[in-house]
């Protein structure tokens, strides 16, 4: 009998929970999931939403009061008892899903009855979500570290994984069309822009990033249960056209996309206490974490840039085919039939295929190719369809295997004038010419906020402090006209005037332009003409010009080496010159660790042994 009583009691309690008409507002409003849905961030002891659009909140104090926002949300959700969901439900489907999960008898509507929402989900056809990384792009300060997108994959439209017509969520600053670059950078850094989520079909992103800006796209397909997929889709819909404040260094695309993904990923996808957020960090963490006990990433695919596809196809042409192609390019003649007469139909198709890709590549560089392209298209249309199996596909290692963006370095230095001293270096981001090449632009360096402090007995001095230091060798892989361009560099910061003195710092601005050549995939050479503006120091005045010659070599899979020679002339007195030699070696024994051994001569000779940790 006691057992029966106990069972009745259990049943009673169960029914009471299930049928409870009163919501526990205190408990619900303190739930971290509710805070995630409202994009709250702790500001001291208070919560404050990062969304600045008033339309995102139903309560007047909703941007900082989760309790008030919950009350108003529930009230609005329950305000109409019609069969079809009301406008509030349809505007906030993720909030509704969350409440429905806990109080299924109070919240009975199906969010798919919302016409606009159903249309956005393509009649509930979204079967998976891919997080997409567009590789770094040096021509756009906002995309220098890469960009992040979220694609809602419609399985039916997946063509070789590209999913061109799937809706894709983007986050970025809302800027005037012809914004001045300096204003753009300044406002971007100091929060002068609003930002927001927009959706476009993926082909527009593919066109912009892979075909026009020639950037690789990396797709990380998430391993989601249907419930998690539904939550992310619903919340993404809520965020479209909602505004945030944009900060280039932190509250950027990586940060906001990571915050969105945290709805279903428990472990942090960024270090939210850090003043910086980098897109690659999100991917490095995604590759490590679980979602409900399963690896967060199901599969990884690369969409190579148009330029990379062109390079890989060009490699697969025979010498004879390359010669024919070069003649077409050189003479721009239209008599393809005569020039290709000695080739089989398949070989002809290969040459014309690469020629067409090459012309599309030139078009990106604003070369007028209209009539030439028409003649190549006609030549291909005249021939029977000859599908080509390009056996060598672009197959790079995914970017999450590359080094983390920030560096801590400890150096031991032996200087012929100063003696032995220690050096501590912190680089906020990112890499240099000798860094691990995975996931970054080849033969380039990109450093921001890079500081070295030297310590010798009781003396401490700043050795270098770079605000920005970017170099791109821009080599040509094919030797075809237009492939590759000018090598260039810019640098702004504090440096030592001479290796032999301490402290003898100068503030300098350096810009350089030149040419480079990649002799093989193991050796590149470059020459640059630099111009330097600096604060006067010792006998040196403000303006100088410099010749710089360099060689970058890949000596093994883990050892890279560079040799740089430069000679500087000061314009006020050409007898004042500075010559510098630097031999630098990087040994990558792990993606998070690196050893460097350098020798540098410029008045004094300095030998350095470095130990770097990337995080």
């Amino acid at each position, binding site marked *: 009998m006691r057992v029966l009583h106990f069972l009745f009691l259990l049943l009673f309690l169960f029914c009471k929970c299930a049928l409870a008409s009163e919501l526990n507002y205190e408990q619900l409003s303190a739930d971290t999931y509710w805070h995630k849905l409202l994009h709250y961030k702790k500001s001291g002891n208070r919560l404050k939403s990062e969304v600045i659009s008033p339309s995102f909140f139903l309560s007047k104090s909703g941007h900082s009061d989760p309790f008030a926002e919950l009350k108003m949300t529930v009230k609005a959700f329950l305000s109409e008892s019609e069969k079809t969901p009301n406008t509030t439900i349809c505007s906030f489907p993720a909030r509704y899903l969350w409440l429905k999960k806990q109080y299924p008898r109070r919240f009975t509507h199906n969010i798919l009855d919302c016409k606009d929402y159903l249309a956005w989900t393509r009649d509930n056809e979204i079967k998976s979500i891919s997080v997409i990384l567009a590789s770094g792009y040096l021509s756009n300060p906002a995309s220098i570290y890469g960009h992040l997108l979220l694609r809602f994959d419609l399985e039916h439209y997946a063509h070789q994984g590209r999913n061109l017509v799937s809706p894709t969520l983007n986050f970025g600053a809302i800027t005037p069309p012809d914004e001045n670059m300096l204003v753009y950078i300044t406002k971007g850094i100091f929060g002068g822009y609003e930002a927001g989520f927009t959706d476009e079909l993926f*082909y527009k992103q593919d066109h912009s990033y892979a075909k026009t800006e020639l950037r690789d796209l990396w797709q990380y397909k998430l391993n989601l249960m249907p419930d998690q997929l539904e939550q992310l889709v619903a919340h993404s819909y809520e965020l479209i*056209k909602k505004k945030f404040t944009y900060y280039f260094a932190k509250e950027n695309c990586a940060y906001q996309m990571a915050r969105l993904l945290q709805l279903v990923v428990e472990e942090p996808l960024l270090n939210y206490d850090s003043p910086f957020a980098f897109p690659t960090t999100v991917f490095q963490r995604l590759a490590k974490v679980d979602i409900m006990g399963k690896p967060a990433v199901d599969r990884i695919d690369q969409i190579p840039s148009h330029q990379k596809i062109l390079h890989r196809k060009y490699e697969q042409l025979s010498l004879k085919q390359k010669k024919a192609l070069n003649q077409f390019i050189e003479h721009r003649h239209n008599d393809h039939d005569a020039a290709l007469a000695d080739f089989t139909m398949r070989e002809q198709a290969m040459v014309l295929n690469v020629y067409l890709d090459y012309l599309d590549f030139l078009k990106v560089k604003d070369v007028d190719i209209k009539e030439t392209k028409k003649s*190549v298209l006609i030549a291909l249309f005249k021939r029977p369809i000859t599908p080509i199996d390009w056996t060598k596909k672009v197959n790079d290692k995914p970017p999450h295997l590359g080094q983390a963006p920030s560096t801590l370095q400890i150096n031991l230095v032996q200087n012929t004038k100063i003696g032995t001293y220690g050096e501590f270096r912190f680089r906020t981001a990112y890499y240099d010419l000798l860094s691990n090449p995975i996931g970054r632009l080849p033969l380039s360096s990109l450093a921001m906020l890079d500081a070295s402090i030297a310590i010798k007995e009781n003396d401490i001095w700043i050795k270098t402090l770079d605000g920005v230091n970017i170099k791109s060798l821009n080599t040509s892989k094919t030797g075809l006209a237009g492939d590759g361009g000018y090598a260039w560099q810019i640098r702004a910061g504090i440096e030592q005037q001479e290796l032999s003195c301490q402290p003898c710092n100068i503030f300098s601005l350096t810009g350089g332009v030149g040419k480079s050549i990649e002799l093989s995939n193991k050796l590149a050479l470059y020459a640059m003409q630099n111009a330097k503006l600096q604060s006067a120091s010792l006998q040196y005045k403000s303006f100088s010009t410099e010749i710089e010659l360099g060689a970058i070599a890949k000596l093994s899979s883990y050892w890279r080496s560079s040799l740089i020679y430069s000679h500087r002339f000061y314009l006020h007195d050409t007898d004042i010159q500075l010559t510098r030699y630097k031999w630098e070696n990087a040994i990558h024994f792990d993606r998070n660790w690196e050893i460097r051994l350098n020798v540098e001569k410029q008045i004094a000779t300095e030998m350095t042994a470095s130990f770097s940790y990337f995080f």
Partner: protein
Amino acid sequence: MKLVKYSAIALSLLATSGMVNAKLNPWTDCGIGAMIFQETPAAAAISNVIWDLGTTAVTSAGLSEQTCEGGKDKIAAEFINHSYESIEADLAKGQGDYLAATLTLMSCNTADASAVRSEMASTVASSQARVEKAEALFTALNTQCAAK
């Protein structure tokens, strides 16, 4: 009376079939032809977001309805209009992701693509404007795939 009845049925069938066949031409009916195709110069892309209510409103609709409000035909037409160069190149090569996506959107198969190749060869060779060529491709595929 029977004659009247049969005539009414026939008329009704004709009307229905007329309605089914009156397919939407997004170029003329939905203003695709009036859209200006914007090519993004590499150096000019300084923002990552196109904050364009019109564009997003168009793409934020379903793929099922045959209407201008984001109907399947309009999405196919927009895709062809935006990606014409890529589809044209794929069609010439006989393969490619953009061609495959077009065929799926238009409910066509690879044999349909081969069938419109000769027609497209003369379109490509012509001096028609880009938007006209895109429309010609859409129409050729629409006709070819509807004829099956």
